[in-house]
């Protein structure tokens, strides 16, 4: 007895992720060409890189055990400097962000204020904190003040943007209700806008404190003070065990901050 061919297809193939075959193949071929070009021009000294493995091994063994005791005083100094820097730059950055954020919200500000504030935000968001820090160090000299200025400017770009977006998304009926009572502009901001955006903004400020601490660990590499400066010195003096200790401390503080900020944000919202 012979089995008739069924009318429906008896085999199935997984449909491709990108449906159009032309687009799919041009992406595949394009990436292949790009990879070939990239590897071709990467100018890697492979002999030097091959030395990397034994070097890396020596490097790692120099890391262990981390040396917490020899430079304890310097390390504490650096950590506290970073913490102070993170706190002050968060506070100053947020204080500056509030007027800028209010001005950058389309439903509050007239057009020319809106455009000015948006361009301030755009400007401070473009460059990484490290580049800001290089210029701050040129202007204000070495030390935590330069780092503070750089991180504050970075905070404006982050915080004012999110604040403005949050204000644009508020519930307009509440704002209207307060306005209908005959409130002044400051009362209106204080009783209609502020309570609506406050919970999220508190969460974001804790998050920004977290970011500023992380960044304060690197602005020191270009002379902006903080634990980054201590870390850089440790590397330059080939004191890898101290560097390992500093890295572990940074990881520890960042983890603590991340958990607290996550917890606080859940609690506030």
């Amino acid at each position, binding site marked *: 007895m012979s089995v008739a061919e069924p009318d429906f297809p008896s085999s199935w193939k997984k449909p491709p992720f990108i449906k159009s075959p032309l687009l799919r193949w041009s992406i595949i071929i394009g990436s292949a060409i790009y990879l070939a070009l990239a590897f071709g021009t*990467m*100018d*890697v000294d492979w002999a*030097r890189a091959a030395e*990397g493995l034994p070097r890396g091994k020596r490097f790692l063994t120099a890391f262990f055990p981390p040396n917490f005791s020899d430079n304890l005083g310097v390390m504490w100094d650096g950590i506290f400097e970073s913490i*102070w820097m993170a706190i002050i730059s968060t506070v100053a950055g947020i204080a500056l962000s509030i007027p800028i954020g209010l001005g950058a919200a389309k439903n509050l500000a007239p057009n020319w204020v809106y455009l000015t504030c948006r361009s301030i935000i755009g400007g401070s968001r473009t460059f990484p904190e490290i580049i800001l820090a290089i210029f701050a160090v040129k202007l*204000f000299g070495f030390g935590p003040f330069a780092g503070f200025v750089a991180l504050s400017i970075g905070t404006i770009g982050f915080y004012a943007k999110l604040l403005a977006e949050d204000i644009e998304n508020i519930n307009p009926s509440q704002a209207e209700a307060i306005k209908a009572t005959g409130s002044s502009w400051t009362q209106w901001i204080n009783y209609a806008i502020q309570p609506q955006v406050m919970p999220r903004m508190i969460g974001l400020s804790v998050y920004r404190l977290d970011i500023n601490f992380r960044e304060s*660990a690197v602005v020191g590499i270009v002379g902006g003070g903080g634990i980054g400066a201590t870390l850089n010195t440790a*590397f330059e003096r080939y004191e890898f065990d101290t560097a390992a200790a500093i*890295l572990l401390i940074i990881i520890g503080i960042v983890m603590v901050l991340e958990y607290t900020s996550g917890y606080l944000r859940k609690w506030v919202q």
Partner: protein
Amino acid sequence: MPLIEMPDGPVWKRRTTKETLIRWFVWLIALAIIAYAWKGISDKTIWFFVQDAPRQAADIGSRMIPPKFSYMSRLWAPVWDTLNIATLGTVIALVIAVPVAFAAAHNTTPHPIVRSIAIFIIVSSRSVNSLIWALMLVFIFGPGVLAGTIAIGLRSVGFCAKLLYEGIEEIDLTQVEAIEATGATKAQQMVFGIVPQVLPTFAGIGVFRWDINIRESTILGLVGAGGIGLELSGSINTLAWTQVSMILLVILSTVIVSEWVSAKVRGAII
């Protein structure tokens, strides 16, 4: 929001007296911390230099204008290097992030111990800034693009794996169950049930991180890890300010272009 009875009728207040007191107390503590932190900073600041800053800013500003456009001919190679660092770094990160993410997601992890190891990898990669990764890798591999690429890769693993495993945890289990009901093995369930659901997330994460990596790779050169940052620190160290402003313009346009590309691609995927 209490009404307080006064001799001449009730008065509306926003908070009760107790709430007001608590708020004042919290503000007091916050101000004390801020004042103390400020003292810590200002003790280590040389105020003479800070007062001098406006003059310095005017001076540097005047030296930076006009940007030296002819310098551009020497910048194409570093820009290309920067793009390669970002792109290849993202590729490395995605390759490592996939197994880590599957090990870290609740619904795909083989064992709780494996999960905690994966979470540890994610956290430690995220806590160390790419500049610090680069600083260490320059010691191992020598200065150059390779150290930068690996630094970007290692730094991005945590970010990509975290977003990816959150995506895996949010998949629709009924689809996996349907595949299982056909008699598929675990591996087949993975390929036909889970992967198609997370593939768009995966592509979105890759592009998103690529955009961030472009920004980060512009500065890696400061510690010797290749790219345009190398030119930047060289120009700053030789006080060639017209070159510095040119480099800043190039970084600015690279960042804007990469942001535009990533927004377009993500718009097409999601």
